[in-house]
């Protein structure tokens, strides 16, 4: 997938903080946000600003494992 670029959008209000996406992301691009969402969870977030070396390929594995359909995936 070299060269392919992608991105994800995590809906923080849908996230229940199971962090299966964090486990699934091959490039460790998802982190835990430090503010509670309206459901009372610390939601996952896309570490966009920190991915200079390891870029999102839009592989969608995070979305695949997300039980709450909180992640949308975009790819070039």
């Amino acid at each position, binding site marked *: 997938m070299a060269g392919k*670029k*992608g*991105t994800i959008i995590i809906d923080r*209000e*849908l996230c*229940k*903080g*199971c*962090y*299966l996406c964090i*486990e*699934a992301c091959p490039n460790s691009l998802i982190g835990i946000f430090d503010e509670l969402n309206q*459901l009372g*969870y610390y939601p996952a977030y896309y570490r966009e600003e920190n991915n200079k070396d390891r870029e999102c390929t*839009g592989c*969608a*594995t995070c*979305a*695949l*494992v*997300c*039980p*709450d*359909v909180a*992640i*949308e*995936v*975009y*790819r*070039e």
Partner: protein
Amino acid sequence: MQKVFQRPKYLKQAVFHYCPGCGHSIIHRLIAEVIEELGIGEKTIGVPPAGCAVLAYDYIDVDMGEAPHGRGAAVATGLKRVLPDHIVFSYQGDGDIAAIGTAETIHAANRGESISVFFINNACYGMTGGQMAPTTLLGQESTTTPGGRNEKRDAAPLDLSEILAIARGSVYIERTAVNSPRNIRKTKRAITKSFKTQMAGLGFSLVEILSPCPVNWKMTPVEATKWIDDTMVKTYPLKVIKDTVGKIDG
């Protein structure tokens, strides 16, 4: 950039009531995706169970008719017999299908009812608070097996899918899981095959899906997915249990 993954068309815009890391909503999503991909959304009727997934109709956006606890296969039989050109599926938990509804399920399979049954196995009664289910593993703790399930006291787990494979009317039975990307993809293929089997009118099909229940297992969601791989599959190996359908097109 193109959107390559989004909420499928047949999943309603609603926040799931399920606990964090629960497998139900993954399975709901997979069913919705397959319904969309097969273009059967306007002729599919689902039968939700009693249990955690009792509110499945709040999420999966097709016609749904609620069955009494365990009776999903019987209600689905009535629907399918009246509407033979429609696609009918029942969605049942392990207590629903393998305890109270065993008779209805075995006989629907034996009659070869052309329905798809999705059997969600989380090795406990989730909604009622984590009591022993017929599928609870030996040694597994639950609120009614405080010292772990003991074969003498509590019987051994029931291998319902293997039992159903003996039934003459069942044509396709596979056990999958939704604890990893790979297994989720496999589960989706199995759901697809089950619907296609029904569309071809070949008989009864069932997909048993091992599904994490982190809260009742007293684990984190990540631990729960690992527990399926490390422990649960030893009792319930992931495999095609019966397949007289073979490759199916469409």
